[in-house]
């Protein structure tokens, strides 16, 4: 199938060369005579061949494009994701070889002043243009480049658009990837990052206390003021997500600083191309403390749990980790006991976690489950591509 598309593009690009050459020269001759054009033509045909892009949605509060999850995800595919070169320096977009990550804040219909005048938050659907979001995500999914607006977080204004070319994997990250039903239909896989209020408060304190002007009261007031809109518009999206990463305070020790975390990976059953991760036996309820004779852990230790549950009326499998990794051998020990993690070689999860050891969450379940979700997405992508190649072969056989 790849070969045939090369030929069709060839003929189109060789308008200047007289067509009689086609009749008595073989196809091979055509390839040689066009020299450099051949290579450019094959390059065009490659992107036209994979004309459908895999779209992933990630719902996360106030964190866009540069967040740790995105960097881990793009790292699984290889290559570092960077802002587009030569474009707007305040662009929220990240591009790597295989992935493009866009921030849904770019689809704000009201800029900061507009929202202040109307008294709406960015969480409110009224401040977002879902029609444009749907049109552009649909276009990229079908292989058409779009001019996407840029929302400048520094100035609070909407900047002139930037060109987004369809990548193999298109990630849309923001507050409302699953809010609009039409956009939801376009997503091949969706993830919701659910941070519990206590952990959110602890993280925001860590982030903002160094900032001049902030105090404990202002941070608390900020969270509480946004809570009604958050609960009304953002939180309900978690029922639609294929995977939810829930971050809660630990149950191992009393800890109110949010340093030790209990992280739950909630995976929906029956999603096409997605096989949930499991521990020991799929469908059973397992409680596992890896620390013992073979592995010595440091305080407060590690505790795993796995089991089937129901989440908003769906059947799900939940894998839970409470505690922290302190040493490399703890990580590799845990990895060797998990099943269905879609690694290409033994130790890939550990390798990915070590690669980004400086990222927040690298020593607990957040980093582990984000890495595993990244590997699952890679597996999903490869399955989709394989199924697309298989479909036309089936058609020719029939």
């Amino acid at each position: 199938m790849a070969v045939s598309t090369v030929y069709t593009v060839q003929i189109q690009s060789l308008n200047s060369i007289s067509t009689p050459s086609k009749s008595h020269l073989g196809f091979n001759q055509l390839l040689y005579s066009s020299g450099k054009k051949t290579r450019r033509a094959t390059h065009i045909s490659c992107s036209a061949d994979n004309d459908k892009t895999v779209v992933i949605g990630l719902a996360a509060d106030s964190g866009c494009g540069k967040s740790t999850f995105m960097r881990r995800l793009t790292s699984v595919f290889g290559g570092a994701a960077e802002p587009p070169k030569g474009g707007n320096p305040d662009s929220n977009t990240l591009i790597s070889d295989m992935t493009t990550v866009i921030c849904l804040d770019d689809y704000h219909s009201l800029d900061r002043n507009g929202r202040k005048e109307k008294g709406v938050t960015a969480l409110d659907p009224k401040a977002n243009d879902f029609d444009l979001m749907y049109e552009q995500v649909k276009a990229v999914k079908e292989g058409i480049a779009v001019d996407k607006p840029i929302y400048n977080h520094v100035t609070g204004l909407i900047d002139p658009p930037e060109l987004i070319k369809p990548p193999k994997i298109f990630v849309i990250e923001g507050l409302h990837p699953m809010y609009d039903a039409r956009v939801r239909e376009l997503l091949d896989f969706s993830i919701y990052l659910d941070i519990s209020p206590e952990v959110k408060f602890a993280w925001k304190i860590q982030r903002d206390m160094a900032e001049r002007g902030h105090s404990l009261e202002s941070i608390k007031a900020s969270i509480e003021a946004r809570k009604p809109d958050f609960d009304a518009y953002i939180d309900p999206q978690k029922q639609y997500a294929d995977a939810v990463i829930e971050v809660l305070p630990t149950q191992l020790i009393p800890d109110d600083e949010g340093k030790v975390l209990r992280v739950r990976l909630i995976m929906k059953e029956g999603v096409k191309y997605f096989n949930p991760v499991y521990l020991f036996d799929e469908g059973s309820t397992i409680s596992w403390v890896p620390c013992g004779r073979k592995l010595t852990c440091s305080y407060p230790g590690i505790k795993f749990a796995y089991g089937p549950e129901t989440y908003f009326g769906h059947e799900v499998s939940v894998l839970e980790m409470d505690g922290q990794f302190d040493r490399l051998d703890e990580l590799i020990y845990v990895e060797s006991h998990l099943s269905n993690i879609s690694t290409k070689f033994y130790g890939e999860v550990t390798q990915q976690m070590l690669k980004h050891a400086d990222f927040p969450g690298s020593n607990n379940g957040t980093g582990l489950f984000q890495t595993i979700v990244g590997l699952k997405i890679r597996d999903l992508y490869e399955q989709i591509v394989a199924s697309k190649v298989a479909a036309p072969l089936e058609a020719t056989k029939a």
Partner: protein
Amino acid sequence: MAAIAGVSITTPKIFASASVRSPKPSPIKLSLLNSPWKSCTTHLRMYVRPVAAAPDKLSDKVEESIKNAQEACSEDPVSGECVAAWDEVEELSAAASHAKDKNKDSDPLENYCKDNPETDECRTYDN
């Protein structure tokens, strides 16, 4: 086309922030008069500085927005203005922390070498 558009957006910012630092332009002008061929390198140096200024501007904006939010909420704690003001605080705090992280791990040599790997300073000898 996108690249040209990018240049026209960024250059006004650079000139705007360069004009804020009034003492700097005069020594640059003198050297330009004496050795006009050096104009390219001085402009490069001019371009580097505004990047460091962004976090301070952002920190001021964060502080300002917190004051506005506290004022707006003192009048009516449940109004749309109060909520929107705190949302703005949240947005600016997030932007400030992102900018801080970006500056924290930007190494000027690494950044230069990413774009110009063939220059002498960036050559690596792997074999």
